[in-house]
């Protein structure tokens, strides 16, 4: 039966998916057309029965198992699917709503994501709260049966084209920091929402800062329970790590083994034993990461959920990126310092982008903490405060000689 599915997937991809992405999703290079193309592609994917493979049919999914999901990932690896704008929505807010959202939220939002109609972003990080996201200061104050949102988020990927966001806000600053947070759905087109692009090291603008100025959140915008937002955040972060960690880089990735090998051959470098060894090691390490992702999926299929081992996948993926960057430098040499060949420029850009994956979605240090504490059961980091009321704590880059956070936005 899954053989059938796999054959169908292969045929569909061959007929409909480009081997390489037509454009990037950085929101700069012709974002409008790129975005329209992405939406159209996601809609086509949905119509063909390949969107939300494991999601229940009542929410627009295919109601299939992890086996089909694995088959799909295997087949899709040869393509760069032009639907990256939906990655965050589907894997993070989408899976979180599926797990802890209300029935009405599941019906309203999940099918629209799958059909490519609505794009989502994740509004967690703030200037004063990244790794320690529970120190966030954005506030949501009760107002009638809804809330009023004020504050600032930062590094929000895709906010520039998102329709909705899953936002974490403080609903009770007098409680210890993990206990006074709630998660909401915010309409990114609502009055009072301002999105400003931020440029990353490569010069692109994949992420933004987002300001909330008295933004109204209706009663049905709460995901999970009030002041239980941390639990929902933990669910989303878990999905995030697993999604990022098991997201196998397409075979065609310019910083991947195959591309570097053919570039090295083109430069006549593959006769050099040191170069051959570096490339072979890159192949081995890439396979290790890929196979571990596969193993996690198989275990999930057999009823053993990855849990905190998603952090292993995330860490392994960013370590691989770092290793690949080093191999590229060794193998392609000074051509990476300056070249007019487009492929080499792309590789250089990806090397500049590589550190981002060790920061986004929780830094590698945070992943190592999680692995140490929740996979290996080691003692928690000393000094992680779980009892002091939030409004008596110092967060982010606040100086110690100014009064502690009031819980109000800056």
């Amino acid at each position: 039966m899954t053989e059938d599915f796999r054959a169908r997937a292969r045929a569909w991809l061959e007929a409909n998916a480009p081997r390489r992405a037509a454009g990037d999703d950085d929101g700069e290079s012709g974002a409008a057309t790129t975005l329209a193309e992405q939406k159209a592609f996601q809609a086509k994917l949905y119509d063909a029965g390949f969107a939300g493979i494991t999601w229940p049919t009542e929410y627009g999914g295919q109601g299939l198992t992890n086996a089909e999901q694995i088959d799909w990932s295997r087949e899709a690896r040869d393509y760069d699917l032009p639907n990256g704008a939906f990655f965050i929505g589907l894997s993070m807010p989408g899976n979180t709503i599926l797990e802890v959202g209300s029935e009405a939220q599941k019906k309203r939002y999940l099918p629209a994501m799958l059909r490519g109609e609505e794009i989502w972003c994740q509004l967690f990080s703030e200037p004063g709260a990244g790794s320690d996201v529970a120190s966030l200061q954005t506030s949501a104050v009760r107002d009638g049966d809804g809330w009023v949102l004020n504050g600032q988020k930062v590094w929000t990927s895709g906010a520039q084209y998102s329709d909705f966001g899953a936002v974490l806000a403080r609903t009770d600053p007098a409680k210890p920091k993990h206990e006074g947070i709630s998660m909401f759905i915010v309409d990114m087109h609502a009055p009072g929402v301002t999105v400003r692009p931020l440029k990353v090291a490569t010069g692109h603008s994949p992420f933004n800062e987002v300001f909330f100025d008295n933004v109204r959140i209706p009663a049905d915008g709460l995901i999970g329970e009030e002041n239980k937002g941390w639990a929902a955040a933990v669910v989303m972060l878990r999905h995030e790590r697993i999604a990022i960690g098991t997201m196998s880089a397409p075979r065609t990735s310019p910083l991947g083994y195959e591309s570097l090998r053919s570039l090295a051959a083109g430069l006549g470098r593959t006769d050099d034993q040191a170069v051959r060894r570096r490339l072979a090691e890159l192949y081995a390490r890439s396979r290790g990461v890929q196979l571990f992702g596969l193993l996690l999926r198989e275990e999930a299929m057999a009823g053993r959920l990855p849990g905190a081992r998603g952090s292993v996948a995330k860490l392994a993926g960013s370590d691989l990126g770092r290793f690949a960057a080093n191999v590229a430098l060794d193998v392609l040499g000074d051509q990476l310092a300056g070249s007019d060949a487009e492929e080499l420029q792309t590789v250089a850009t990806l090397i500049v982008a590589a550190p981002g994956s060790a920061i986004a979605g929780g830094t590698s240090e945070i992943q190592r903490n999680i692995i140490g504490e929740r996979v290996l059961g080691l003692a928690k980091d000393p000094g992680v405060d779980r009892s002091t009321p939030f409004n008596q704590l110092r967060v982010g880059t606040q100086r110690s000689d100014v009064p502690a956070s009031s819980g109000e936005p800056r």
Partner: protein
Amino acid sequence: MTLILTDEEQALADSVRRFVAERSPLTSLRQLISSGEPFDAGVWKQMTAQLGLAGLAIPEEYGGAGAGLSALSVALVELGAGLVASPLLGSAVLAAGTLLRLDDEDAKRELLPGIAAGELMATLALAGGRSKAVLVGDGSEPALSGTVSPVLNGTEADVLLVPADSGSGTVLYLVRAEAPGLTRTRLAAADHSRSLARIRLNATPARALAGDAAAALSAAADLANLALASESAGAMRACLDMTSGYAKIRVAFGQPIGAFQAVKHRLADMQKNWELGYAAVRDAARAGDEEPGRFSVAASVARVLLAEAYFDAVVDTVQLHGGIGFTWEHDAHLYYKNGLSNKVLFGTPGEQLDRLADSLGI
């Protein structure tokens, strides 16, 4: 093809693990160190007669169980975790695996059933070193001369498969332990769980084995990669358990040392490296049974990943135990020595990478 264990494989893993805990704990390796025995004959007998481990990857027609390489790998993971000293790798994996890929039906019928039962001990005199055997006798009465070292279980083996330069390429020869002109010297092995020897041949009578020796030796190298990677995965897991266990109970500065990130993060990296290596071992084991065309590359990948990862892990195991980890009484050094030996036997990491690069066509 799936990477996770089947129910039968899980049952095999459980029974081998129980066996290791009961019959071959690390204290018995220490007994071998003081007695000088290469392995515990009683343990070997039970491993073979009772658990049937030597016959796992030998087809039923030659007296084995025909369970395949995945089952063998599962057993090796558990044996590796316990640093069980035995001739399994040399005899049942490498010698049997080499024979199986030759076309010498007589030799297979004569030797494989004994190997599978654990009653006959064979080895493959394959070493990465410079010294090699050469054919000195004529075609009708072949004889070999030369030195091969280090050879796994070279002193204990009843028969040796010796690759030698026949003048027109490499041929595999069968040499019997009692053959004249054969000198076997036990070496000081870095790893107490391996018995290694220098084999000297001086016009030693040998029988040429029919078949493609180069292909059989290449298959043996793949099997060595799978086997060493499997054992290393088990041993690395043991290091990880031992060290994270210690990090939970050893207190310094008022904290269990595992609370310190310098300790925690090394263990997290060890866990990550283990996960990748183990997944690669599963892939290689399955490929060996189900996708033979992929086996060589898959086994290289597993070996490359684990040779590095396991050695890093043993270094960290010693380090994170502090002074106690550097004592003779502590088990850390047993793994440390196994890690260094596993890193270089049948190909250093550099040689492994060269081989992988060749297979990938780089």
